């Protein structure tokens, strides 16, 4: 394997997340109880999704400026992994919500907005698969990807904050205020975000290399 240092870092961070995430002291809060530990596994899915989709949109912009196969492949693979993280985020969120909010889906503004955001990205996959011609597919889906990312940011970070929400940090509260009470959470949370995101980047890395090989093989055979 090439460039193994950040892959080693990924493994270390994830092992730390699991061990410290399960064994470290956490605040004793009613209703949440031990489920507060989901902070290390559910929330990083969303942070990871945003960061990986950011990678995707950067490569889409790069493709529009410099249309190479690599830029297109990385943008596509990153979008797919970002969507995977988002789907995992919504499923883990529903599981957590069932036992703390009482329902899998309580039409919470952030739940609804993230569902819409994911649908926008599903449309990216559908749009992409509807072109036969490679350059047309790459260019149009790159443009759409920029639109999708621009729509996702207000959906996740602005609109839910304008109304009351079950999610912490919404309904007029600034983002992380409820966790500010406790730095023990942050000590595991930030490495967890970094670890899960790097895992996603690693998957993007392997998938892109594989896809590029496949494309080159078609060129040469």
């Amino acid at each position, binding site marked *: 394997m090439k460039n193994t240092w950040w892959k080693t870092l990924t493994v270390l961070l994830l092992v730390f997340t699991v061990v410290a995430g399960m064994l470290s002291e956490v605040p004793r809060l009613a209703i949440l109880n031990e489920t507060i530990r989901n902070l290390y596994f559910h929330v990083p899915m969303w942070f990871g999704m945003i960061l990986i989709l950011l990678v995707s949109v950067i490569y889409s912009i790069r493709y529009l400026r410099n249309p190479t196969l690599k830029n297109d492949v990385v943008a596509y693979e990153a979008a797919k992994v970002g969507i995977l993280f988002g789907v995992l985020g919504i499923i883990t969120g529903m599981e957590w919500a069932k036992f703390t909010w009482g329902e899998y889906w309580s039409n919470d503004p952030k739940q609804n907005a993230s569902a819409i955001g994911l649908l926008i990205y599903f449309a990216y996959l559908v749009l992409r698969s509807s072109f036969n011609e490679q350059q047309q597919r790459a260019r149009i889906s790159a443009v759409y990807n920029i639109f999708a990312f621009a729509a996702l940011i207000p959906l996740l970070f602005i609109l839910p904050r304008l109304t009351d929400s079950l999610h912490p940090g919404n309904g007029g509260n600034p983002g992380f205020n409820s966790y500010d*009470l406790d730095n*023990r959470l942050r000590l595991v949370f930030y490495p967890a975000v970094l670890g899960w995101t790097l895992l996603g980047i690693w998957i993007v890395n392997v998938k892109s290399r594989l896809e590029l090989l496949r494309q080159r093989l078609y060129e040469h055979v």
Partner: protein
Amino acid sequence: MNMFRILALWCFVLCATAGIQPLQAQPAQTESSLTVVAEPEVEMADTLRQDGKIYVVVVVLLTVLGGMIAYLVALDRKVGRLEKQFKDELVNH
């Protein structure tokens, strides 16, 4: 590349220490606001941890994580080998 590596490592160390420092400065705050208010009746998995069973969960999670990562590493290696093979063939033909 080497410069980048050192820079990234340094950033990580910086972030890690920045994360640890508030932890050390923290007890006074917790005493007053959190534990006193919330501790008495909130249920936590204390017995689970006393019995040592939480470690079973940690082991299971680590196994799952280890399996996933081993799979990804194997995949990474496979792609790396293919890349090398492909380059060699390009040179030879």
